[in-house]
């Protein structure tokens, strides 16, 4: 099993942290973000406005520290921006704003908005005949509580929206849980699904590239609830 944890990003995270303690939500997304940006997403700082780029939509906008650290590490934003994150002159809020941060596709923070925006993005790309780019939306298992997600899951499944991947980081934080697993909410609506160890980079890579081009795909990345 390949796990890099956050060693490479640790100094950048420290710059974002500025002495604050981060909750589990920050660390639970780091491995997924690394695999996405290093091995899956066709996007670079030079292609953030390319209509044929892959789209990554961070729906759980509070998981932003690792996101900013990674965007800085990969050259999307200057590393110096991390130092005053959340400050009055900063472009990096506690939730991201797409109009302020290069490479950020959506402004998020209120839970349950990313998947609907992702469905619309996938439909727009399809209407334009762009068959290359794929839309990835990162959610949390507690975020699935919001009913808007289930509107999007049902519709995308029923219409076979094949250029859409949802990633659910499952750190067991949903107050009432998802008996039978989060993936079952998707598969019953016709999605393909893979549930993997959210720290295992190779397993994540296989899952994130395991879509069949005929229907939407979900990857449930499970991590310890203490993480």
């Amino acid at each position: 099993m390949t796990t890099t944890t956050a060693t490479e990003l640790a100094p950048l995270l420290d710059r974002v942290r500025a002495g604050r303690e981060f909750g589990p939500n920050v660390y639970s997304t780091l491995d997924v973000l690394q695999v996405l940006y290093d091995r899956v997403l066709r996007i670079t700082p030079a292609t953030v406005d390319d209509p044929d780029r892959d789209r990554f939509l961070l729906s759980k906008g509070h998981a932003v520290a690792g996101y900013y650290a990674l965007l800085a590490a990969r050259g999307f934003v200057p590393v110096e921006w991390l130092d005053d994150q959340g400050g009055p002159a900063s472009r990096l809020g506690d939730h991201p704003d797409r109009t302020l941060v290069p490479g950020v596709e959506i402004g998020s923070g209120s839970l349950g908005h990313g998947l609907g925006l992702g469905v619309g993005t996938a439909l727009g790309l399809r209407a334009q005949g762009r068959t290359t780019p794929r839309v990835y939306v990162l959610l949390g298992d507690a975020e699935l509580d919001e009913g808007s997600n289930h509107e999007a899951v049902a519709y995308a499944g029923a219409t076979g929206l094949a250029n859409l991947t949802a990633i659910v980081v499952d750190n067991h934080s949903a107050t009432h849980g998802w008996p039978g697993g989060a993936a079952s909410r998707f598969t019953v609506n016709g999605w393909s699904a893979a549930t993997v160890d959210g720290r295992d980079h190779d397993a994540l890579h296989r899952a994130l590239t395991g879509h069949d081009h005929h229907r939407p795909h979900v990857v449930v990345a499970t991590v310890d609830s203490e993480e």
Partner: protein
Amino acid sequence: MTTTMREEFVRTAEEVLADPRSVLVLADISAAAFAPAAAHHPDRVVNVGIREQLMIGVAGGLALTGQRPIVHSYAPFLVERAYEQIKLDLGHQGVGAVLVGIGASYDRAASGRTHLGPADVALIDTLDGWTVHVPGHPDEVRPLLRAAVCGSGSAYLRLSTRSNTTAYPEAGGLRVVRDAGPGAPLLVAVGPTLDAALDAVADRPVTVAYTHRPRPFDTAGLRALAGAEVILVEPYLAGTSTRVVSEALADRPHRLLALGVGRADLRRYGGPEDHDRWHGLDAAGLRRSVDAFLGSPT
């Protein structure tokens, strides 16, 4: 035979779908009317089912890819149910859409409170940068919709089964329909309230101006026409434009009477004409309010 605003909307939306940028987003309402268009443009007529949150989210995502969404349902489902999606999935993302509501305040009076939408314009008015069109005649719908779709910002078209007898396609700014001369009280009628308003002040020296675009409100036109007394007649929540008029005339002593639909859930059915009467928006009710405001005509 004249068509309805809704029919004009369907016809015009089919026209603008010829532009590959346009996408129609539905939540079952009017889906049957758009079936031919959907057969023509399967990727650009999207019916998400009865899912209004998704309808607006999809519009936001489409706009992020450069498409121009036209989103349609009954006003309360379009604006009230998915208000946060309108705020965040459009406004906060920095993208626009054209929202087309039907049902207005109480077109579907017999359906009861669930299908009434008198607060829609007030809700949209909490957001920045929106244009609101309230056509008063079916012939005003096509040019308004075409212009809105050609733009890039967000616009709300509020369609109704209520209509004036005369169409004024060029009435974004205040258009004087009846001129009582300098210094006369000014009545501004929005959308389908014009006929009743004209009737109500027929025997009074009141200047009547009409607009089908309450946002952005024509404040320059208002300042040019207004004397010391201004009467607003709006077909949605009473007072919706009070803020705009008061700010525009802040440097002048003036009195303002703002008429429109009341806030109370009347828990009554009937037809839209009944609700006009109950809210004082029929000619007789408007006349009573104007008499009380200006004093009885001599």
